[in-house]
């Protein structure tokens, strides 16, 4: 093996010829790509294409049926401290019982046993995480009082406070209005650059991300394509991926994929 390829195996994500199945159904086959430090990747594709399943694979919650999966040079394992994961469908129960800063603090030591006592250092870390996602002004507010976009920022801060090298965000833009979605995306883009953290963001709509992402992974029809948005989201690539004619229309600086369900 060449030294270069050994090096590539240490990257945040290294997938080679990976096949994923779920309940006897083939979800993805022949997935091969790597993700580098500080890269901002959008994960796109129709429902059931395996976007969330891909995240689960990296989290060690499911095993590949074939191929090689490495996260920072190691086989995926549950509770990997190098991965920060913000799940979809977050229900924040007892919304008025905790403040924004409590929710962020959970990311630091919420999984540890014992009562945990407040300290200046802990407070500083929480403050810094809130600052980083520009949520300082509502640090003391009850979570239930916050908007969807504000809660997404907290979710991000909760993940970042643990200093992960790879962040997996599952549909963070769902149910957000366009302005909030754009804010979250530019925030994440900035974090990739400033922290050198790799981010995989699952989304249905590429448009809020077009200006910010480095590459997209497009999953459909048990296959995938990876590359810059302008090379992947094209009539040729998507038609071959879906195996039927697909049209990509550009209008008002946005891309619209026609002929498929997104």
């Amino acid at each position: 093996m060449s030294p270069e390829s050994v090096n590539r195996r240490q990257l945040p994500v290294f997938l080679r010829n990976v096949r994923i199945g779920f309940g006897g159904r083939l979800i993805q086959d022949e997935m091969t790509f790597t993700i580098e430090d500080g890269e901002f990747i959008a994960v796109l594709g129709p429902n059931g294409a395996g976007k969330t399943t891909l995240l689960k694979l990296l989290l060690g919650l499911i095993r590949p049926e074939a191929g090689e999966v490495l996260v920072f040079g190691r086989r995926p394992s549950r509770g990997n401290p190098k991965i920060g994961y913000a799940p979809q469908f977050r229900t924040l129960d007892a919304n008025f019982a905790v403040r924004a800063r409590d929710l962020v603090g959970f990311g630091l030591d919420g999984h540890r046993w014992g009562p945990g006592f407040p300290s200046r250092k802990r407070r500083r870390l929480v403050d810094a995480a809130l600052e980083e996602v520009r949520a300082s002004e509502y640090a003391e507010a009850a979570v239930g009082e916050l908007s969807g976009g504000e809660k997404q920022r907290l979710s991000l801060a909760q993940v970042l406070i643990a200093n992960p090298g790879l962040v997996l965000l599952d549909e963070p833009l769902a149910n957000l209005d366009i302005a909030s979605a754009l804010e979250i995306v530019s925030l994440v883009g900035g974090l990739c650059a400033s922290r050198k953290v790799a981010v995989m963001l699952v989304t249905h709509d590429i448009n809020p991300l077009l200006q910010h992402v480095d590459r997209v992974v497009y999953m459909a029809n048990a296959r995938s394509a990876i590359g810059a948005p302008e090379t992947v989201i094209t009539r040729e690539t998507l038609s071959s991926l879906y195996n039927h004619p697909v049209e990509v229309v550009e209008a008002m600086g946005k891309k619209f994929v026609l002929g498929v369900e997104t």
Partner: protein
Amino acid sequence: MLGELCSSQIMAHAFIGGAIVSVVAGSVGYFLVLRAQAFVAEAFTDIGFAGATGAALLGVGSLVGMIVFSLLAAAGLGMLGKRVRGRDVEVGMVLSFALGLGVLFLSIYSRTSGSHAMSGINILFGSMLTINSTDILAALATCATALGALAILYRPLLFASVDPAGAEARGVPMRALSAAFLAIVALTTAACVLLVGILLTASLLIAPAAAAVNLTNRPARAIALSVAAAVGVTWVGLILTFAGTIRHLPAGFYISALAALTYTASLLLRKRLRPVRAFERAHLDRETG
């Protein structure tokens, strides 16, 4: 007059026992409220009733019976899934079955032993005024165990109760945590039933904690408030009971009434606190957004 009250050993026992139970009920209750498991707490009190009457039938201590029964029920409920949220049907069935068992044990006991069903009455309504030092020691040991376990689970339990998806993503063992918490609830209700009876335990577990959650969004502060409210309600209830000795209204009435009153007061206070904050937020949004 208060000096007179406290000089009596019965009263001293009642105050001490009530305080021990209230501290644990207030703390455990906070998590029951966060996890929307008030109904589960209710079920555990009925399970405790079956345990206590069953123990009387076998001639063992009622606390032992209650603990064994409630821990069994906790294991059963724990097997249902990660969380016992929205499991109304299962919990309701366990509850009524346990109550039925309790009635059966009680009727056999009172028939065979020929005694009046006094012990049953004590279990139902509590025996605040007949607490002896053995009861207090037993309750203290049980409550200390429950409180110690709760302290160990505190951070992951809070995380899992408020943000289950986030906690699971961070590697919190949800199922084990849920089962462990149910065991804590089991111990707590057993101790509570011993001192304040089945009918009262739920009011002491739920009302102070629910009131505290209405008044603050800081977890540690909420627990402190909840404990203070539980102890306060119990002690004021006892004082009223002893003060009105001639009429002899049961302590249970005062305590449950005060608990309900505390919760109602917290609702009214919250209505005055919350809309202002919500308005401020909305206003801020408009300015910055």
